[in-house]
């Protein structure tokens, strides 16, 4: 192959590419989705939505950069709906002014006020809790636990957690700041650091495994990881060696986070966007999604998968997620100061 042959091919390739771009996303009834949630979690819902409504859903998934893409694309953005995997990112979208207020009696009825933006720019679809997993062997079965208690000396060398720079940890620390203020939380964080059994590493499931293996007695982790482990024969023994404990049941309740969605400010199909989010919070979709990613439905009275049902009833921290999200930068900088930013 000569260089000149290559150039000819490049020209042909470029022409082909131009042809491809022209056809993108121009069908009559459709909605375009930017998703921070993975396609394999969204696809069953999207298929059901399309089957129900006839509206085609086009999706781009990325775990980073979609907000920046929305900002850069400005008023010409093709995106109608954004879905994120935590409340913090929704707060970022609000701050960047790329979401619009939505009037939807259905959504207001389905989603409790602390799980949506005060101006209805985003709504939770599902929720999860960040809980503690205690060793069945080494922690008494009736022992109540609190987030605050993680800094107590009795747990020295007994706590396992993922990296504190992970958004899940940042969100938990943010909720501590929201309840106790910065100064108190900073001391608490130092105490937790002193109690760690090992360098923070791995995902939430790795922490549960570490408890099962005897490396530590208490792990911090989201509820849905436990569900995933219980439904996998290989990981089931590790999950069965721990007891999920909802913290602060005597007090403010367990820290909550959400998967949430909003309609973009410059949406071309805003009605379809609202329809999609309404559908995601409908009983049918709530059942599918909760069974798919093991999060809790946001809608009450929905039948839930057995692996999630094992958690039973628990008390949720009623704090507004928007208020928690507002503390994220403070939390991130606190992690740096505590020397936990690896």
């Amino acid at each position, binding site marked *: 192959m*000569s*260089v000149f042959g*290559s150039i000819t091919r*490049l020209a042909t*390739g470029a022409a082909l*590419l131009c042809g*491809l*771009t022209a056809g*993108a*996303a121009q069908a009559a009834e459709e909605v*375009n989705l930017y998703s921070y949630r*993975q*396609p*394999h979690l969204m696809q069953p819902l999207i298929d059901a939505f399309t089957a129900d409504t006839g509206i085609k859903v*086009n*999706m*781009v*998934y*990325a775990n*980073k*950069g*979609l907000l*920046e*893409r929305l900002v*850069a*694309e400005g008023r*010409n*953005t*093709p995106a109608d709906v954004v879905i994120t995997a935590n409340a913090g990112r929704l707060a*970022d979208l609000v*701050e960047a002014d790329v979401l619009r207020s939505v009037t939807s009696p259905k959504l207001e009825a389905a989603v409790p006020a602390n799980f949506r933006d005060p101006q209805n720019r985003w709504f939770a679809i599902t929720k999860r809790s960040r809980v503690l997993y205690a060793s069945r062997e080494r922690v008494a079965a009736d022992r109540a636990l609190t987030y605050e208690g993680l800094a107590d000396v009795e747990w020295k060398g007994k706590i396992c957690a993922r*990296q504190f*720079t992970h*958004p899940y940890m*940042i969100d938990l620390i943010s909720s501590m700041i929201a309840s106790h203020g910065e100064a108190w939380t900073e001391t608490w964080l130092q105490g937790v650091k002193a109690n760690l059994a*090992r*360098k*923070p*590493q*791995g*995902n939430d*499931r*790795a922490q549960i*495994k*570490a408890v*099962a*293996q*005897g*490396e530590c007695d208490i792990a911090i982790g989201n509820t849905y990881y436990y569900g995933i482990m219980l439904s*996998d024969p290989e990981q089931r023994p*590790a999950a069965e060696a721990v007891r999920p404990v909802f913290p602060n049941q005597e007090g403010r309740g367990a820290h909550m986070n959400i998967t949430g969605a909003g309609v973009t400010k410059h949406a071309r199909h805003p009605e379809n966007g609202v329809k999609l989010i309404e559908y995601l919070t409908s009983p049918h979709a709530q059942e599918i999604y909760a069974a798919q990613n093991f999060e809790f439905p946001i809608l009450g009275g929905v039948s839930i998968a057995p692996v999630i049902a094992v958690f039973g009833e628990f008390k949720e921290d009623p704090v507004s997620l928007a208020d928690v999200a507002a503390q*994220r*930068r403070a939390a*991130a*900088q606190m*992690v*740096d*100061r505590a020397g936990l*930013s*690896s």
Partner: protein
Amino acid sequence: MTLAVAPPTAVRRGHDRSYLVIGLVAILATGLVALPVGALVWFALSVEPGIWPHLTRTVLGNYTITTSLLALGVGTGVTLIGVGAAWLVAAYDFPLRRTLEWALMMPLAAPSYIVAFVYTDLLDYAGPVQSTLRDLFGWRNAADYSFPEIRSLPGAIIIITLVLYPYVYLLTRTAFLAQSRAAVEAARMQGLSASAAFWRVALPMARPAIVVGVALALMETLNEYGTVDFFAVPVFSTGIFHVWINMGSLEGASGLALMLVAAVAILLLAERRARADRRFTDARSTRPAQARAQLHGALALAATLLCTLPVVLGFLLPFSLLVGSSWHRIDALFTGDLASALLNSLELAALAALVVTVLSLWLAYAGRMSGAPLLRLGTRLASMGYAIPGSVLAIGILAPFAAFDNALDAWLFESFGLSSGLLLSGTLIALLFGCTVRFLALGFGATEAGFERVPRSLDDAARLLGSGPVDLVRRVHWPLLRASSLTAALLVFVDTLKELPMTLALRPFNFETLATVTHQYAVDERFAEATPGALAIVLAGVVPVILLSHTIRQASRPRA
């Protein structure tokens, strides 16, 4: 060795205009490719007050030290393995050499975060190795014994070295093969021992290629996120995402990313200074190569073992563990989703390889002909984008692209009442552009290393005989550069197959590649589900690796 003759001005002037055009086009292309880095500079300038004081007070020192140690460790590792293996297979004959020649490139095909995961699964506390040891010696928990922690800086150095040494091996081997045996033989006749001939002749002659290979490996190390995040090693790339995502400061993150670029620039500049004006070519390099020295006995065995080890650790072991853990899911490889992702991956990789190779050839040629400082600076700057994590670089691309689209749309609307919408943003063209920017360093590095081996006396001779620039490339450079260009194309092809963060952020709607399909499971550490996609990436990368090795051997074979 080199005889650089200034061409008579009369001859040169005849082709002045064509050289001018080549130079102008190259400068234009360079400017375009440097755009994303420029966009990041723009972001970094508007950083909110408080971010830098916070970073310098808390984490910057640690990031700097850890990143330097990582780079130093990987740099040393890839040089030892890459150059050592290249010299052994180029200069000696020993059992399995012909197989090892191409097998040594295999780790290129495996994404590093997959290799990191496989080793963690094998070696961490809950893994089979430590569990077996505990059973064997009756240890109850971690307090009873000590075992090196795989999720650590040394662990990251080892994994990244195993995956990246092929860059050095590939470029250095090509350089060794292109060297005239005459030089080494002359040294031997002067009474130098074989090892002295290597240290004093072969190695210095291959220096430009080695430097390019190590520089590429280092830039890839700096932009690497998957492995260091997985191993919880606090380096710049993990810090960049902490600042960007958790502190909500893209501006601060851009600043950190540019510090990486600055560090690479200083290192490369220092190396160039040290190399000064020495040229590493041999006017008689087309002379047929002599036979390799045959190794016998213990030496032959040692050579075979030394070259087998990196292949086993960097490819065979993780690959077979991957297959072993997922053989019961192997039918997932044949689903429709994975097939269409494979087609998308191949299309993107082929186009990126083509564009980058042609552009690299053009830029390297223009640089050789004109030496205009603006062009050199631009090309260097553009190539250094490789040191920046892909998702950050992606933002540097979508910002100017969308700005252009929106400006055009506004102008059309004001002038003609028409709307063009987003012309480039969110299209395959934007993604292809992204891959071109990201991997230009690979293509340009490989091509330039090839150009440096073409003696300038050949250019001058051809010009004296009246060759124009096109003629010069086609009849003189291309035959000598073919192997380097193919190396460039292969590197870009395989790296585009593995490319993830940029594809995620820039791709059009409903466009999946093998890497994105794999990632959606791997990001939750659901590696069982991720494995079919990971295997498909490796298999798709292995074929071109083998083809390339074959081509390099053909190209370096003397022609009758």
